[in-house]
Structure formats: C-alpha cells, structure tokens
C-alpha cells in the first residue's frame, strides 16, 4: 500500500511515519509540508492513501481535496488535533480520520479498513467545496490566484497554465479536469478552459474557425467539436 503524508508540522510527520513504518505492507512514498507540495506529489506519485493534516498554511487539507484530479483521487485519512466540524459535511464512508496524538490501536483499525478497501473515493472530491483560488508555485513563493481573476487555462507540454487579466501566465499543479469540475470555467478546446465571465466576444475567422476574445484581448481557440456545446452554455443559441 503506497501512502503519502501531508502535514505542516515536521514532528507530526515524523510521528505518523514512525507508526506507519512498523507495518510491512506499507510503503511511504514521501512527506509534504503543505497542500501545494501535496498536490504536486499526488500527481507525480499516485499514492493509494494520503494521511492529510487539515490545518495547514494558506490551503487547508479540506481545500486541497477540491484541487486534486478526480481521476487520481486517493483514499484520504485526515489527521486533526481537535474535532473538525467541517468534516461533518463529508460522507462518513468516504474517509477516515485520526486524532492527534495518534493512538496506535486506532491507527490499526484505520489500516484494517484500508487493506479491505482501497478503491479511490471520487465521492470526496464531489463533496468538496468549489475552488476559490488556484495555487501557482513560483520561484520564491506560491501565488494563490483567485478563480475570478483567471481569463483562461491551458494545458501545454510543460503542464497546466492559467492566464490572468494582465496577460501573465502561471504554472499550476491542478489539471484541466479539476478546474473544469470545480470552477465555472467552460471547455472550449481540448487544451483550453475559458472563464465565461471574462469572454468579450466570439470571433468567426475566415477559415471557418472560431476564437474567443477575452476582456483583455487575449485570443482563445474554440474547437469545432465543442463550439455548439459552448454556444449553448453561453446561452447563444
């Protein structure tokens, strides 16, 4: 069983790692000290289970769930120091949670459940709140860009990038699928999502192709296949 630990307190990570290290069938793929690192690691390592702290800087554990790719949703074991009322919003079967300091006997129960059933839990993703901000790691720090400030998102060979009003482009660990599911963005192209609030016009070009022009005059391509659906969603039909 491949697991990933995400907690901002290093002694806390160390403790859960020590407890999990006793189990022969568990392989710790890595440890992350915040949610942004966590998303990247999940995308990269595809863990079956994550041990996820709830209180973390900038992006909480709960918020992080809505930033994951629903296809790659691991099973989640929340770690919390105190009763977290926010957990009541979720289907109790979709996750497990452990109180800190962790009681090894209680952890055993959790592990038994996981061994029995480690199928991913997309239910958790569906229940997670809509996305409000998109984390974009930069050189020195992580930018948290508000969803309404994004004009469009595109998937390139290097990864997914969001473009904001001033034209600057930011890399993000979030997948287009996540953004499509958790934001109001509309799919207009296999590689593009557009923020409908930022659309200024649909421009019909000579070659029969269509482009979206955003409020700040950025051009976003529209695929022929998705044009009808887009028009429908925009209420243009």
């Amino acid at each position: 069983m491949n697991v990933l630990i995400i907690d901002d307190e290093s002694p806390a990570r160390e403790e859960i790692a020590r407890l999990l290290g006793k189990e022969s069938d568990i392989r710790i793929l890595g440890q992350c000290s915040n949610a942004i690192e966590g998303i990247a690691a999940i995308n990269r390592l595809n863990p079956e289970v994550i041990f996820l702290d709830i209180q973390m800087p900038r992006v909480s554990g709960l918020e992080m769930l809505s930033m994951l790719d629903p296809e790659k949703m691991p099973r989640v074991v929340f770690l919390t120091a105190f009763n977290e009322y926010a957990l009541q919003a979720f289907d109790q079967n979709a996750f497990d949670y452990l109180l800190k300091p962790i009681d090894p006997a209680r952890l055993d129960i959790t592990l038994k459940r996981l061994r029995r059933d480690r199928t991913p839990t997309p239910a958790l993703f569906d229940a997670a709140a809509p996305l409000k901000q998109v984390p974009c790691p930069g050189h020195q720090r992580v930018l948290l860009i508000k969803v309404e400030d994004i004009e469009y998102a595109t998937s390139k060979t290097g990864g997914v990038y969001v473009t904001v009003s001033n034209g600057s482009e930011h890399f993000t660990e979030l997948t287009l699928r996540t953004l499509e599911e958790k934001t109001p963005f509309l799919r207009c192209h296999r590689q593009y999502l557009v923020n409908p609030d930022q659309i200024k016009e649909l421009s019909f070009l000579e070659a029969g192709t269509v482009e979206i022009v955003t409020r700040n005059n950025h051009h976003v391509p529209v695929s022929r296949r998705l044009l009808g659906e887009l028009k429908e969603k925009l209420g243009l039909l």
Partner: protein
Amino acid sequence: MHMTLASIELTLTLLQQTCVYLVIAYLLTRTRIFIPLMHVTIRLPHRATCYIVFSLFCILGTYLGLKIDDSIANTRAIGAVLGGVLGGPSVGLAVGFTGGLHRYSLGGPSALACMVSTVAEGLIGGLFHYYMMRRGRFDTLFNPLPVALVTFCAEVAQMLVLLLLVQPPAAARHLVEQLAVPMLVANSLGAALFMRILLDRRELYERQSSVFSTKALGIAARVEGLLRSGFNVDTSTLVARIVYEETGVGAVAITDTQNLLAFIGIGSAHHLPGTPIHSALTLKAIESNEVVYADGNEVAYRCSIDPKCPLAASLIIPLVGEEGRVIGTIKLYEPRTRLFSTINRALGEGIARLLSNQILAGRYMRQRELLAQSEIKLLHAQVNPHFLFNALNTLSAVIRRDPERACNLVLNLSTFFRNNLKRPSEEACLGEEIAHVSAYLEIEQARFLGQLVVELDIPDDLRLVRMPAFSLQPIVENAIKHGTSQLLGVGHIRISASSANDMMLLSVEDNAGLYVEPATSSGLGMHLVRRRIAARHGSAFGLDIACEPEVFTRVMLKLPLTPCEAATALEGFHA
C-alpha cells in the same frame, strides 16, 4: 383736653382690638395657607390665596372695630394694604373692594366714604408693591417699617376721603378728629407687627430647612462611596457612625435581613453587631418593606434584648435593593429622655434611600468587575484546543528522538498552563508576561521545527514595568495563528520593548502581513486587550496595528511606564 383724653382712650381700646386681630393672624401663619404669602409671588394660585386671606382680614378688621357714633374705628386698612403690598395692585384693589363692599353693607353715614377709602388703601399698598418690584427691592416689601409708613399714608388718605365724602362737612370734621389718631396708630402698628409675624415664620421655616439640608448634605458627602465596596459589618459600622454623628440621634443601627451589622450610640453594650435581629418591629419592616415608627407613645417600643435599655423610640426604614427587594434596614433610636425630632425622621428616610442607591451601585460595579474578570478568564480558557493537542502530538514525537528536549517541552507546557490557570490577578510585570509568552513560543517552535524563528528584544530595565496581566499572550498567539502559521516559508516573530515619553511601546511583529480587520475569529483577544488597557489608563494607551500585506503585521501595545511593586516583580523572576 377732653378730646385728647378720649382720643388716647380710644387708641388704647383699638390697640387691644388689634391685639386680638394679630393673635388670629399669628395662629393662621402656622397653617399651610400662609406658605405662599412668605414670598413675593406672581403666580395666579398664590395671588388668589393672597386675595382670599387678606380679604378675610379686611372683614375681620371691620368686625373687630369700635362703634363710634354711627361710624366704626377699625383696622380694616391692615388687610387692604398688606394685600396690596404682597399681591400687587390688582390684589390690593380686589381686597380693598371686597373689604369696602362689606363695610358698605353695614351702612351708616360714612359707609360710602369707608368703601372708597378701603379701595384706595388697597391700591396704595399695591402701588408700593409695584414700585418696589420695579426697583428689584423685594426685601423692602417684607420690612415692617416701610410697611408701617405705607399704612400710615393709606390712613391719611382715608381721613382725607372721609373729609371729602361725609356730609355734612361739620360731621366729617368731627368724625376725623375722633378717628384720626387711634386709627393711624393702630393700623400702622398693626400692619408692621403683622409683617413681623410673617417674617418670623419665614425665618423659622428657612432655618429649619437649612438645618435639614446641612445635615442631609453632610451625611451624603461623608457616606459617599462607602457602601459601594460592599454591604458588610465594616462598611455599615462606618456609615452608622457618620449618621450617628450628623443627626445627633441616640443611636443608629444597620441590619441586613438577618443580622445586626452595626450599632453605634446608646445601648451599644447589649446591641452587638453580628447577632441575629431580635426586634419584631425590624422583622416587620423587612417583611412589609415599609417604614416602621415606634414613638414610644402610640406605638410601644421596648428594646427586645434588654428591658433596662434606655432607648424608647425607634424609626426603622428598609433598605431596598434590586427589584425592590429589601436587603436590610437602618434604624434610628432616641432614648426616653429625648424627643424624636421630625427633621431626623424625614432625614432617616432620605438616608435610607441614599444608602440603598449606594449598595445597588456597589453591586452593579462588582458585577461589572466580575464580568471583566470572567472575560479575562475566558481569554485564559481560550487556550486553543488545537494548540494543546498539537503540542502533545509534538511531544510524543520528540520523546523518542530527544528525551532531553522532551523534558524541556514538558516544562514549557507546565509554565504555560500554570500561567493560564493563574487567577487573573489583573496586574503583572513585563517580565512575567515575557516568561509566559516564551514558554508558549518554545512549544510552537518545537511544533514547527525550524519553520519559526523568534527574536526577543526586551531591555532589562523594562522588565519591571507594570501591565494588565495576560495582555501579551493573545497578541503573540494571533501573530502565529493568523500570521506565521499561514506562511509556506519560514516565519519570523519579533517581540521588542522600548520606552518613549513615559510610555512603554511593546511591539509584536510577524513577517506574514496577513492581518485583516477582525470581522472574524481574531477579534476577541485583541479587542479585549485594547479595551482593558484603554479602560485602565485612558485612550492615549492601548493598541495600534500596522500591516503591510505579505510583508509584516505589527501590533504595538502602548502602556504607561509604571514600575511593578517589589512583590510582583519577585514573582516575575520566579515565573
């Protein structure tokens, strides 16, 4: 010669009559109807009283007159003139007319002349009133001598009217010769004495009220604030002594609803504070919430403890607290040998009301204090459960790796919780607060291991500066909870103190710059700290917040530079 002798005889007889008249006047001045007449008044009801009273005296003057031939030697002028002097021209005219009409109804050759002259006399009194009022000399109106002169003039006028109107002229002359001297003397003297009586009444009345107000004010000033610190044996004894000294009654007692709290004065040997209430009258006053007065005559008063007790009269007034509930009584006593003065009886009720209000104010104040205390307690108790369990979680990790460091952590936790559990003694010195905060920060540093850097810059000489306890911790906790713990990188907390212009500046700065106006969670702690400092030291002191987004948040406490007392300072070093 014969004329003169007859005239003197008549004068004396008329003066005798005037005496009867004045005795009636004296008796009437003791009644309430005279109270409005003791002041110059322009209010209508008072003028009406003035008119009625002096009209009666006018008529009385006629009845008490002496019949001479067909005419009457009388003192009617006193009523008419005084009515005018005290009530003004309109009242004077009205009184004169009423008295004159009455005289006219009795008939005789001088009837018409007498009526006209009485009206004239009222008018003369009224004009004197008008003149003096215009000149602002109210006191002259009550001065017997000018009043006598005015009456004298009025009588001269009457004589002239008689000479003019009585027919035949010879009869008129005869009449005036007979009447002039007795009536001039009797009326002038009578009016002056009448005024003197009024004046005496007024002075007595004023003396009484000034004694009353002096006593009341004296008691109010001396007991001010005493009962606010609590309604108990100590404060009650102080109050009872003051009331005893100021009123001069035989003895003063204060009880709550069960026990005697204080007893000062005669009989204090057997009325012992702290003993349960004996007197059935007191219990009755408490139960009924009514004043009980046992004067020793109509209502028997007998000391319920010692039959030989010299106290013979007792006034028991309930003290009333919240929602009109009786919370005790104040009792005034006089011994057998003295009368219970009405002033003291009236004062007693005033004192009881004053004391009740004080007790209420005291309770209110204490409740407010309690509320503030419990707010602080709340702040103490507001130990974030996340903090506690995370600290324990950290500890469980550290124990294995570094037992030495784990021991240290346990000590820090103890220090932190000990300080939190401590009753908010309200005052601490900076050193103590720093000790408390350091323990907290050490635990947080262990939690975030290398992700939190703390810098303390506290000059030694400021460690003894006094401040409201538990002021620094909430600020530092905020700096971590809403500041550095939200950083993806390393957090910095810097706590520094400096002094300037008799003020200590205590600054807590983080490198997160995430402060937002507390619409939400961070509000309570910071708000309470600000309110406590400002409430204690004035609005020049308190708390300032500066924030540059993403760079820093700095909270600055501004406190007065007052040093700790030695004892607290020592405690600070132990902490």
